[in-house]
């Protein structure tokens, strides 16, 4: 057997040639190419996994960023809303107006000589509504009984008329809350005192009747 003939058909080898001739019948006979499917199969574009990983990471990062920004904006909006809304709470203006009334009216009431009872009533009324302010101004029932204009009260009132110190948002909010609480408590106190007074009046009436 010649290796050269077996490898690249150079030269001759009768034994191999004999085998080739015998097996010739089984050789591939060229046919027409197979009929391709009628539908054209679309070839997918090659996309690497790396690209998918990068795109996924980017989209995930963007989603997280959007969520965080949304949350942050929401929180900041709530804060500003609270700060804006706080002055609009009904109670503080009432408290302020009442306080002004007290500050303005008291001296006038004191200067103008009115019957004792009415002055007492008003003083009590004031004390009921805003006790702190009254205390600050030293307006007590004893002072009112003197019926003399008190210089100290006037001085204090003039001091109170000074422009208020500018407060920060938080301070203002706290102040408003405090005033609201005070107004609520004062209104409740008023109710209680009214009830007590009524009871006393009835007792007096009952006694008189008897």
């Amino acid at each position, binding site marked *: *057997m010649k290796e050269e003939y077996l490898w690249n058909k150079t030269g001759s080898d009768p034994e191999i040639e004999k085998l080739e001739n015998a*097996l010739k019948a*089984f*050789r591939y006979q060229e046919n027409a190419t197979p009929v*391709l*499917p009628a539908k054209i199969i679309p070839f997918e574009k090659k996309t690497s996994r790396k690209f998918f990983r990068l795109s996924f990471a980017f989209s995930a990062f963007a989603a997280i960023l959007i969520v965080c920004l949304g949350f942050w904006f929401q929180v900041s909006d709530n804060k500003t809303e609270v700060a804006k809304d706080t002055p609009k709470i009904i109670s503080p203006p009432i408290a302020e107006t009442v306080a002004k009334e007290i500050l303005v009216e008291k001296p006038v009431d004191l200067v103008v000589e009115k019957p004792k009872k009415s002055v007492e009533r008003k003083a009590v009324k004031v004390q009921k509504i805003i006790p702190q302010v009254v205390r600050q101004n030293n307006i007590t029932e004893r002072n009112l009984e003197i019926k003399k204009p008190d210089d100290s009260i006037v001085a204090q009132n003039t001091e109170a008329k000074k422009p208020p110190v500018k407060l920060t948002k938080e301070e203002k909010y706290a102040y408003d809350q405090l005033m609201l609480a005070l107004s609520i408590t004062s209104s409740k106190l008023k109710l209680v005192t009214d009830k007590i007074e009524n009871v006393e009046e009835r007792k007096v009436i009952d006694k008189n009747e008897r």
Partner: protein
Amino acid sequence: MPENEMTGNLFLFARSETRDAPISEKAAAQARIVERVCAGDEEAFGELYKSFAPMVHGIVLARVPRDEAADIVQEVFLSAYKNLHRLREKSAVGAWLAMIARNRATEFYRQLKPTEELTEDVKGKNNANTEAREILSAIRALPDAYKETLILRLIEGMTGNEIAEQTGLTPESIRVNLHRGMKMLRQKLGVKK
């Protein structure tokens, strides 16, 4: 000559020969054909079929009956056409086709319904192809690596280099397979040196 010495010489010879053969150019040409097929060029598919059909036929013939081989070759190429876009290494189309052919041949036996073989009386004793059948059955009885290479060489008439190019195997291994396969075939057929 001792066998080891001979195979050593064969390796040397093969190396010197592969240096001359422009295999890379052929691989590049094959890759170009595949790219054209992927682009939807049916003519390129015809070229691919013509150049690889004998190799596929040889691999299929080494495993399945002769009558079935032609149909399986067609199936192999249709399957390849459908899945060609998945082939990453375009220049390795030959090895890829060979793999599909082997798988198809295995599937053929898996799906085969039980049949009875014809007796010698029915077949006809004086058939002209009797000798050829005997040789073919002797080749089929060899190990896979040897029978494929021998069929491609003796039946399909391909040279060692052509077999190496189309199947993706190295010329050295083809040379060894041819040499050892022929030796075993001779023993099977009872041919004396």
